[in-house]
């Protein structure tokens, strides 16, 4: 069989299985990300079937998947929302970053992965999955709840933090010197500021430039521009994903809305391939040794997210049940943890077990997060019920 035919068959089989997994995930209303990762583990190196042929394609497709993930994330926000979100939530955002970065970093140091490994694992445990959290909020009908703006503005802060974190990480992974690192950070901060101000003032020009009534032209415009910006950002060592995120923010209004509707299927496809590609490159045999650490991290960072959400919601004047909901809603980690781990693994600058730990961790958190959010309400009610029964005065008869 010629190699192209073989690759096509393998790729087709993989995507077909992904479709099945996505349907399964939908049936039990959970995020498909953990299933994609497991799919990748099964097909990958050391898995049940080794599909070597698709690796080359899936690598590039995975890169595009990351760009699309971040582009669509940027499209969801307007520059104005980012500013108000930042103003409203920066304290909560800082608490969130500190509490959730430290556990990951500490475990990496304990495992002897060095400063670089610590920065990577800190990022992995820090960032909640906006995709999963948003889905949990809509699925549970909590959009009108009072704690919801708090949750969303913490997510906004995290996403903006990514725009600073990813360039730093990219520079460090590339082995840039301290001075060079500072330079990249300077460049990325300047770029972010310029883009935000431009988006606020002239966002409609960018939107107009890419907009077209013809959906084919529109798709090609947005996609082309996204890859172009991502490539340029990558060439400047600012991380391709951040370039795409910034482009997404600059596009606003109806154009942004139409663009995200148009790109959603593409993102779903390429992001799925990205998760599988990550799983493909992880040896399933490397997971059991780090499973204990993953569980420990899961418990600790679930608690730290609950503390973050609780504290932030309390500051916003939300009562106890709402605080618990805010805390548990933030537990889910997903796509961005894998994006960070993926960046680190591809660069080859970190220990191989890191991919295994990140995979195991995200597998746990992507499942645990939505479950915790769902069962918060009954749990709080039961606890409070018992509490108030104890407190109630005994009947006088």
């Amino acid at each position, binding site marked *: 069989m010629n190699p192209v035919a073989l690759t096509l068959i393998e790729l087709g089989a993989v995507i077909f299985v992904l479709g099945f997994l996505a349907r399964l995930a939908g049936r039990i209303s959970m995020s498909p990300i953990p299933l994609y990762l497991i799919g990748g583990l099964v097909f990958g190196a050391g898995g049940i079937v080794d599909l070597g042929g698709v690796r080359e394609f899936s690598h590039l497709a995975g890169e595009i998947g990351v760009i699309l993930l971040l582009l669509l994330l940027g499209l969801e926000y307007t520059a104005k929302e980012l500013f108000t979100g930042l103003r409203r939530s920066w304290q909560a955002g800082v608490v969130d970053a500190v509490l959730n970065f430290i556990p990951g970093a500490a475990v990496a140091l304990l495992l002897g992965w060095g400063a670089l490994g610590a920065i990577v694992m800190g990022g992995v445990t820090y960032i909640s999955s906006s995709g999963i959290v948003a889905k949990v909020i809509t699925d549970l009908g909590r959009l*009108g*709840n*009072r704690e919801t*703006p708090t949750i969303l503005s913490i997510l906004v802060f995290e996403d903006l933090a990514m725009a600073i974190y990813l360039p730093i990480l990219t520079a460090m992974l590339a082995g840039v010197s301290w001075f060079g690192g500072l330079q990249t950070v300077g460049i990325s901060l300047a770029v972010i500021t310029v883009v935000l101000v431009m988006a606020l003032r002239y966002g409609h020009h960018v939107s107009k430039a890419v907009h077209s009534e013809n959906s084919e032209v529109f798709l090609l415009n947005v996609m082309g521009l996204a890859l172009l910006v991502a490539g340029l950002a990558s060439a400047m060592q600012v991380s391709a994903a951040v370039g795409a995120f910034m482009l997404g923010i600059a596009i606003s209004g109806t154009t942004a809305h139409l663009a995200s509707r148009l790109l959603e299927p593409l993102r779903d496809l390429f992001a799925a391939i990205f998760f599988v590609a990550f799983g493909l490159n992880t040896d399933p045999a490397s997971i059991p040794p780090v499973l204990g650490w993953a569980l420990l991290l899961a418990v600790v960072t679930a608690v730290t997210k609950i503390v973050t959400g609780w504290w932030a919601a309390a500051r916003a004047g939300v009562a106890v*049940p709402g605080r618990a909901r805010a805390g548990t809603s933030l537990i889910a980690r997903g796509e961005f943890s894998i994006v960070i781990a993926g960046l680190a693994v591809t660069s080859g600058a970190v220990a191989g077990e890191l991919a295994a730990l990140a995979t195991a961790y995200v597998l746990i958190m992507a499942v645990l997060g939505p479950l915790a959010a769902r069962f918060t309400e009954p749990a709080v009610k039961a606890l409070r019920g018992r509490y108030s029964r104890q407190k109630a005065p005994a009947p006088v008869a």
Partner: protein
Amino acid sequence: MNVDETELPGFGVRKDFMTKSGRRIGVVTHRDGETELIISAWDDPDTCQASIPLTGDEASALGNLLGSQRIVMQLTEEHKEVPGIVTRQFNILPESPYRDQPMGRAAIRTRTSVSIVAIMREGEVIPSPGPDAILHAGDLLVAVGTQEGLDAAAKILRNG
């Protein structure tokens, strides 16, 4: 009335207020124009007991119902002293012969002595509409007149 407006980054805007009875009520307007009616739970004003997605038509129908109720009550109160005067609301149905026509074409005042004192449209009030006001499907007319006159006016608006 103090309506709180809160941005929901990535989703849209929530506008709500606290009722006297301690329930939070309002709407979430999604980025794509969808509207959701939200009502808080009785035991926890932070939670939503119901969030009901409404189409554009449904939202404006609900707005008309709530808005017109107050006007009708006010008018009824004012006309309480005058026996025989009744306030009533008429819905302009899509199949009404006067749909998209100026109101004067129906000549309700001349034919039935009934006055149309307001039109409720998409939650807004158009007070004392003139004969050239165009009637749209979904409009709610607030009319004042005698019982018989109002019956006749209803028939005219329905059948021409």
